């Protein structure tokens, strides 16, 4: 079974969907739950339309149903999850506090999470402090958690054990409630729930596929948590055919979090150091990030080896391996806060590479305006695009709200090489690093990103070579020695991969994997989780041997096809594919098991467990490091070795997913009437970021966005190509016939979509694929909008159109600062009269509000907002 929710996989990942179709041909059931009836829905055995943003109600319904019908995989849940663990007496649930968990501070809109901890567990010291959007890394892993005194009840009867808390928390998430909140008929809901259950247990597994349809919500992280809880209850993690598949937004997005373009992470999910007292020295950093228990006890080896890779011989024990000179973060430096900082005149320059924020980022009207406040802007892309032309022919310039001559930004547009014109590897959603060679030279001045960054770095390093300023230490001491080839001095991408793999400093020998890493400066490694990708001096990511796929003994695992992190392991936590005694749960789902004769773990894949650790090994209460992980605790990256049904730490907005409405919703929160939206979510309450008030009768329609197969993200790679442009020539909105009739909108005719931020026009695609939903006794209409169009094309046969992201406000999930892409709007027939974001012109505050402590980096929390007055009742639409 493949359960797809929050993803239009066939639409957005047609090549990956090949395997879903192969599974379907072999009898797998395909389930699709989505607001938008897409090509994915058409191929599914079972499709349920859901109101955009209500997924947690649906997931809570599944959890409720699985528990109520006793359908969870008991042996798995009791032994491998924290179901039995007993939680602090101080903990209060949303059921007790009408929508809040214990610890909520309405002043700051944040939670003091100390009461969420296990009973007897010691809280990591960061908990309870005001966080920005970055949470302490220690939180995520339970690092620093002392487990010695934590109690559990394996009968799952203790009223404060996780299982009972889960049961209580979701008691009201009944099929009837799901129907009322999500608009999914209860028969459909039960059919889906029972299909999931039927594909779980010892003999069967099911997988969950999600994508940005889940992440892009003010409760996005909790949605994914909800999916993970369902998968854990059904025993679908660490087993073949199970798992949670995160479909990525485009190529190598997985790679861009592994070796991150994210502001709060260093390579390999090490936290970015913070400018905070007690976290400044290497020892501080290791103390806070390292865990006494579990795998993260190796934390020091990874950070020291990273510093050795970066600073080479200049990283010594005496100077803490250069750690003190790493940049430190002081708050939320995410995309949105950075752009608002630019808007307010607090940012000089910006590099935009492989991104088109003038079309692809939320509230793109604001993004385009913000670009005009920069002194300089470097854009690298395949073609001229809206982000590089915001000053010339954007909606705002055409509409006269912004005058080109007033913009002082100096824009550099640099031509980039396409993906077949450069070498390197992509990391896909399966954590598979796949190398591809260059097929042809890029045209003209186009160069690879690697070329650009390498030569930029060389010039910057040369510029600072003579500096005596201490802050320039990293530039003077950077280890930068990649070889070059060809007439354009292209750096060797394999040199970079070698550094990422790691080497022994004394000999230069390539490391075979991260278990060789040391904290004494004898090893260097650019990203510990990738260590082994160049083992034996061989580019393992370049392997293309599928092996014997027909071998019934795991031939399908194909371990010699490319290379997967960590340690070429294809399924994470695969020790969970065996029962607590180390035997496969079933012959059918055999994957990794304990070989008593050999005295080690073995199987089709690289076991994700210390090979010689016996299944009956019991950790002593005072054990540390990996010794603290018992032989039947498969989730060894967690301090307690268990998968978390309940998160005692790690999340800023609750230990269990809870249904809140999107910020902009035309309906009440039926489950927690007093708390409409996620109380810990981020809001930037600014004149230039106006929100549609909740339940405002002016905005009765629910909207969400989706991708088309024919176009790629913000469009420069598809709208300029005549062959693709002709396949989807115009921006459109999918709308149900009933709403179209009410508004006088004709199929194929023009219509406008309106929010507080913008009014855009689109062709109407009136179709029964979109259907109105019955929500709590009234009809709610949903529209679906693709978001690929913008104002510029480089080709006569290219296409342009209005930009969906002009409609959407900036808002943030508290954990990761991602926006809410389920929103309210209204629609009308006809075309727009002004530029799409003309209404923003009056809202923009052009005065510069500069200070050291920039306001944009301190977003307000939802709970702080004062709009409690209810607008008039909505009419039945």
């Amino acid at each position, binding site marked *: 079974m493949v359960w797809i929710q929050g993803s239009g996989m*066939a639409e957005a990942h*047609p*090549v990956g*969907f*090949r395997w879903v*179709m192969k599974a*379907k*041909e072999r*009898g797998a059931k395909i389930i699709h739950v989505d607001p938008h*009836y897409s*090509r994915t*829905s*058409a*191929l599914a055995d079972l499709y349920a339309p859901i109101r955009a943003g209500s997924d947690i109600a649906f997931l809570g319904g599944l959890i409720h149903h699985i528990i109520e019908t006793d359908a969870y995989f008991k042996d798995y849940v009791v032994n491998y999850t924290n179901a039995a663990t007993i939680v602090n007496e101080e903990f209060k649930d949303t059921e007790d506090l009408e929508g809040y968990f214990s610890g909520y501070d309405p002043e700051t809109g944040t939670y003091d999470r100390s009461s969420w901890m296990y009973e007897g567990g010691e809280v990591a010291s960061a908990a309870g402090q005001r966080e920005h959007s970055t949470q302490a890394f220690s939180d995520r892993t339970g690092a620093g958690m002392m487990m010695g005194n934590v109690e559990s009840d394996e009968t799952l009867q203790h009223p404060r054990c996780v299982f009972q808390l889960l049961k209580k928390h979701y008691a009201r998430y009944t099929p009837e409630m799901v129907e009322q909140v999500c608009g999914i008929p209860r028969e459909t809901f039960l059919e889906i729930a029972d299909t999931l259950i039927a594909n779980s247990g010892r003999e069967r597994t099911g997988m969950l596929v999600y994508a940005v349809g889940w992440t892009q919500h003010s409760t996005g992280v909790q949605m994914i948590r909800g999916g993970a809880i369902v998968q854990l209850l059904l025993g679908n993690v660490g087993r073949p055919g199970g798992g949670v598949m995160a479909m990525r937004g485009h190529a190598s997005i997985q790679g861009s979090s592994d070796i991150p373009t994210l502001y709060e992470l260093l390579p390999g999910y090490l936290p970015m150091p913070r400018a905070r007292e007690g976290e400044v020295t290497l020892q501080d950093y290791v103390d806070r990030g390292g865990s006494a228990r579990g795998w993260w006890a190796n934390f020091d080896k990874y950070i020291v080896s990273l510093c050795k890779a970066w600073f080479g011989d200049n990283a010594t024990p005496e100077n803490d391996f250069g750690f003190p000179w790493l940049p430190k973060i002081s708050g939320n430096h995410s995309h949105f806060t950075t752009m608002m900082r630019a808007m307010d005149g607090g940012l000089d320059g910006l590099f935009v590479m492989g991104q088109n924020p003038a079309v692809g980022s939320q509230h793109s009207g604001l993004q385009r305006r913000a670009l005009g406040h920069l002194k300089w802007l470097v854009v690298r892309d395949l073609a001229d695009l809206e982000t590089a032309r915001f000053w010339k022919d954007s909606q705002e310039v055409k509409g006269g709200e912004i005058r080109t001559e007033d913009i002082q930004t100096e824009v550099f547009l640099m031509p980039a090489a396409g993906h077949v014109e450069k070498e390197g590897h992509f990391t896909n959603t399966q954590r598979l690093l796949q190398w591809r060679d260059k097929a042809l030279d890029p045209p003209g001045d186009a160069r690879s990103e690697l070329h650009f960054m390498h030569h930029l770095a060389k010039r910057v390093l040369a510029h600072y070579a003579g500096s005596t300023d201490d802050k320039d230490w990293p530039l003077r001491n950077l280890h930068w020695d990649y070889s070059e080839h060809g007439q354009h001095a292209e750096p060797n991408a394999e040199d970079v991969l070698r550094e990422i793999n790691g080497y022994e400093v004394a000999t230069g020998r390539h490391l075979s994997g991260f278990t060789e890493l040391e904290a004494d400066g004898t090893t260097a490694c650019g990203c510990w989780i990738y260590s082994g990708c160049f083992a034996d001096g061989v580019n393992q990511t370049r392997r293309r041997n599928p092996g014997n796929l027909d071998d019934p003994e795991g031939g399908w695992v194909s371990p010699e096809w490319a290379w997967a992190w960590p340690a070429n392991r294809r399924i994470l936590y695969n020790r969970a594919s065996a029962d607590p005694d180390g035997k496969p749960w079933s012959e059918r789902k055999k994957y990794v098991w304990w070989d008593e004769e050999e005295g080690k773990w073995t199987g089709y894949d690289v076991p994700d467990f210390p090979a010689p650790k016996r299944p009956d090994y019991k950790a002593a209460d005072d054990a540390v490091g990996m010794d603290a992980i018992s032989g039947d605790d498969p989730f060894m990256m967690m301090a307690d070795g268990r998968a978390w049904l309940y998160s005692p730490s790690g999340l800023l907005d609750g230990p269990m997913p809870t249904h809140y409405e999107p910020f902009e919703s035309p309906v009440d929160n039926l489950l927690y009437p007093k708390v409409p939206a996620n109380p810990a979510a981020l809001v930037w309450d600014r004149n230039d970021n106006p929100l549609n008030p909740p339940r405002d009768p002016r905005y009765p329609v629910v909207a969400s966005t989706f991708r*088309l*197969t*024919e176009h790629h993200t913000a469009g420069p790679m598809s709208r300029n190509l*005549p*062959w*693709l*442009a*002709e*396949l*989807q*020539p*115009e921006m*459109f909105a999918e709308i*149900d*016939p*009933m709403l*179209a*009739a009410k508004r006088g*909108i*004709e*199929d*194929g005719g023009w219509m406008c979509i309106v929010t507080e931020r913008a009014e855009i026009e689109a*062709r109407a695609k*009136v*179709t*029964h*694929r979109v*259907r*109105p939903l019955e929500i709590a006794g009234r009809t709610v209409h949903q529209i679906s909008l693709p978001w690929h169009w913008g104002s510029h094309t480089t080709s006569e*046969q290219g296409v342009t159109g209005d930009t969906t992201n002009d409609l959407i406000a900036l808002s943030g999930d508290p954990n990761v600062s991602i926006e809410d892409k389920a929103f309210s709007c209204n629609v009308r027939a006809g075309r727009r009269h002004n530029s799409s974001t003309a209404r923003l012109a009056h809202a923009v505050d052009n005065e510069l509000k500069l200070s050291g402590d920039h306001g944009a980096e301190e977003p307000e929390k939802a709970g702080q907002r004062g709009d409690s007055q209810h607008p008039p009742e909505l009419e039945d639409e």
Partner: protein
Amino acid sequence: MSARSPLGEIAVRKPGAQRMGFFTDTTVCIGCKACEVACKQWNDLPADGSEFRKGGSYDHTGTLSAATWRHVRFVEALAPSPALQREAEAALARGIGGNVPNIPAAGGMPSVEALGGAGGGVAEHEMVDLVGIAETEAQPQMDRWLFMSDVCKHCTNAGCLDACPTGALVRTEFETVILQPDVCNGCGYCIPSCPFGVIDRDPYDGRAAKCTLCYDRLEDGLEPACAKACPTDSIQFGPYDELVETAKGRVVALHEKGIETAYLYGAGDAPEQQIAGNLGAFFLLTEPPERFGLPAQADSPIQENAPVATATGLAAAALAVAGTVASMLIAHRRARR
């Protein structure tokens, strides 16, 4: 002279070559249009324009043409509601819709004209008035959204080839039908002779053009571009006889899974039921052929009208028979451009 070319058609023969074909399985098509683009890229065909089509689902290119040799059709099929049932009955009474049991599809009902423009165009007056229905009736439910990649059928009895007076259209050693642009004089006789509306004239130079089943790739032992690009193997390429066996097995498998409406279109039929003597590019369908703009019955006009004749005479006869359809068709295409 092979048994498959009874009418004196011009054929290339090479020792060891065998009939090659396409098996397009609509049950695994995801409507991604990769075939349409791969075809244009390999054959260096221009984007020939599109329009945002009323009632067109995700199909904006509309039809096979001189520059679109693969075309993906989209059919939005509704579960019949009383109103739709009435519309369907009325459509049947008007003699359009063929043997479609539960028309209409939201993507438009096929009609004689639509079939003439096979691959897609649906006249506006044939479209279901969705808004009108919504105003008057309870909401009908979306039932199925169907995708089908259409292509030249490379018929055993190829109407285009039979009609061609210049020998521009020839049968290859793979028993596919290709057009040699340097021989084509642009007479256009082939166009009405194709019962599927596949072949078309290039609006710029007037010569006819259509799918070659990637003859150039086949000569180098490569599979056609569309089949290569298809992510789900909806388009399969191979030796014809093997493909037919594969396809028959697939039908049996689908029947066993409870999809009893699955059948092959253009392959495996008894002689009297064959479509154009069997199709080199055949399809697995789960709906009546009209849903996809395919005729329930079709043959080369020559096969239907003249057992023995010279090629030129046959072309003239074909033109006479198909003349009305042809003018309708051309007008229809012009209207679309």
